[in-house]
């Protein structure tokens, strides 16, 4: 097993105010021009953990023919889903793309789909969008726009297979509330590079949950920027990487204005010789962002030998006038003492493993706030664990 934990190094750097290992996150290029980003080699700061060879098709500046099949729940009054031409879509995107895959996704998407929730509309039932890949290369651009004081839950589920890149722009007007759930339940050969960029107006509230279980490579980066005071983001993530899977989640929370709150909580389990997860959590508290309150956490549970979890928290603080700022990152082996305790009560090895892993994810799953999704997830985690049990049985000499 290789567990790489950069916690100490970055924690030391981050806590000595102002000293950051590389250049500030604020200086990272964003652009709609794909040529602003050279084709990644894997040596770049933001690609250094990524399997660039598998992602190569997503770096090609060429038109594509593929599409995802859309199925949407019935839209209630005040909610619309419309097609937006490429140029308008760019205008309405809250921030330019942060890497080549994202820029090319916009360029070759053929226009965006815009889900708009009118001001003061409160939608009780989750709005569901099911996206099914039917193979081939697909580029996507999605706009989610929540009007002033509107509230909604949006669940986007990706299944099937594709080589897919996308940009999802999330625009929350003042006092808007959005619970956005992104489920990556791709088939085993899907390759997905996505970027979610969110902008929050004054007093807006974003709760974002990312669940990555399927796919060969999933690299999903989320950025949230505060544009008005009193806003809050809660970003949750759950992933389970098996043999041959690469699951990467990069986060960036940009505290540019005072009195905003952010919480980032990502948890992952890894099983199988070549399972690889990457979590990079950047938080920037700019000089103007007095009264900021932020905390980010990443925990990884390594179930079998050979799996690798990279975890890099990074906190940049440019003002001393904050409420609180902290981060934690921990990567641990599956706990044999917990297993022994449960098994000494008659519980079988498989069942004990299920209990421990369910327990590890339990608090996170309860945060999603969409009962149907929560229940489905527990079942899916059990299914993932059944693969683990099969893998372990194939290892000779294991008890």
């Amino acid at each position, binding site marked *: 097993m290789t567990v790489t934990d950069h916690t100490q190094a970055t924690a030391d750097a981050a806590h000595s105010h102002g000293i950051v290992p590389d250049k500030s996150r604020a200086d990272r290029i964003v652009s709609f021009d794909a040529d602003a980003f050279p084709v990644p080699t894997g040596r770049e700061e933001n690609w250094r953990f990524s399997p660039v060879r598998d992602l190569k098709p997503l770096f090609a500046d060429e038109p594509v023919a593929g599409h995802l099949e859309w199925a949407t729940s019935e839209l209630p009054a005040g909610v619309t889903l419309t097609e937006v031409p490429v140029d308008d879509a760019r205008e309405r995107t809250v921030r330019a793309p942060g890497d080549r895959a994202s820029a090319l996704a916009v360029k070759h998407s053929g226009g965006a789909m815009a889900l708009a929730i009118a001001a003061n509309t409160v939608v009780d039932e989750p709005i569901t969008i099911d996206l099914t890949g039917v193979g081939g290369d697909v580029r996507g651009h999605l706009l989610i726009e929540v009007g002033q004081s509107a509230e909604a839950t949006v669940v986007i589920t990706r299944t099937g297979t594709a080589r897919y890149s996308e940009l999802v722009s999330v625009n929350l007007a003042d006092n808007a509330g959005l619970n956005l759930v992104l489920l990556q339940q791709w088939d085993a050969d899907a390759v997905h590079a996505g970027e979610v960029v969110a902008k929050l107006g004054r007093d807006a509230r974003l709760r974002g949950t990312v669940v990555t279980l399927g796919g060969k490579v999933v690299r999903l980066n989320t950025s949230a920027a505060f544009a008005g005071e009193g806003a809050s983001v809660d970003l949750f993530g759950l992933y389970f990487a098996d043999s041959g899977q690469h699951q990467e989640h990069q986060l960036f929370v940009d505290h540019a204005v005072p009195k905003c709150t952010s919480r980032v909580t990502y948890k992952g389990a890894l099983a199988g010789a070549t399972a690889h997860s990457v979590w990079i959590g950047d938080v920037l508290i700019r000089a103007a962002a007095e009264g900021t309150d932020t905390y980010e956490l990443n925990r990884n549970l390594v179930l079998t030998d050979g799996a690798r979890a990279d975890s890099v928290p990074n906190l940049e603080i440019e003002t001393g006038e904050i409420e609180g700022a902290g981060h934690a990152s921990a990567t641990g082996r599956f706990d044999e003492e*917990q297993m022994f*305790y449960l098994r000494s009560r008659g519980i079988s090895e498989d069942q004990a493993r299920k*209990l421990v892993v369910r327990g590890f*994810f339990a608090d996170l799953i309860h945060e999603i706030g969409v009962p149907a999704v929560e229940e489905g997830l527990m079942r899916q985690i059990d299914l993932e664990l059944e693969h683990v049990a099969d893998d372990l049985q194939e290892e000779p000499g294991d008890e």
Partner: protein
Amino acid sequence: MSTLEIRNLHVTVDTPEGTKEILKGVDLTINSGETHAIMGPNGSGKSTLAYSIAGHPKYTITEGSVTLDGEDVLAMSVDERAKAGLFLAMQYPVEVPGVSVSNFLRTAKTAIDGEAPKLRTWVKDVKGAMENLRMDPAFGERGVNEGFSGGEKKRHEILQMELLQPKISILDETDSGLDVDALRIVSEGVNRAKDNTGLGIMLITHYTRILRYIKPDFVHVFVAGRVAEQGGPELAERLEAEGYDRYVANA
């Protein structure tokens, strides 16, 4: 009527300095309804004995046998041992975050019995057992041992023992670190289980105090990985007066 029979048990652990023999030939027989106190100084191997019988993977049995009613315990997996009727109340119970006590208890009971308990009687049994041990019903919703105080952990161990109804129970320093009130509550639980099910008990302890509440039929003095002396309850009184010095000096 059940019998746990330990014969010439030798056990090693792997340490950074190499393999170390901890148990050096333990002989002990425990029948249903009997209470055996195992008393010995720290580091004498009491927990090693308990863990080895329960099947903890850190311990290697190099010689000897353990049988329960003639069945080879050492050939069983950890969960099979529990299903066969062995129970270990641990000296340091393990936290299992996110797994609620009630889910854990129901899962264990289902595993031991081979079928799910009848819901209505089960809820009643759990409630009654928790009341007897002065445990707040809210415990059911907490994570297993998560944030429990030392005394709460020990009561939770006894709760499991009462609900799972083993044939032979090993209590590893269940009394250590308890105040007198908690000690009394825990001892009542042990005596209740014995009265109800005819449980055989291996009561591992460092202190003599618990023997005022749980009366042993036999006392075994455990020193340097083996039983140095055995006798009846009077041996405990002698230990209380003299301590372990006499044995340690000879060992």
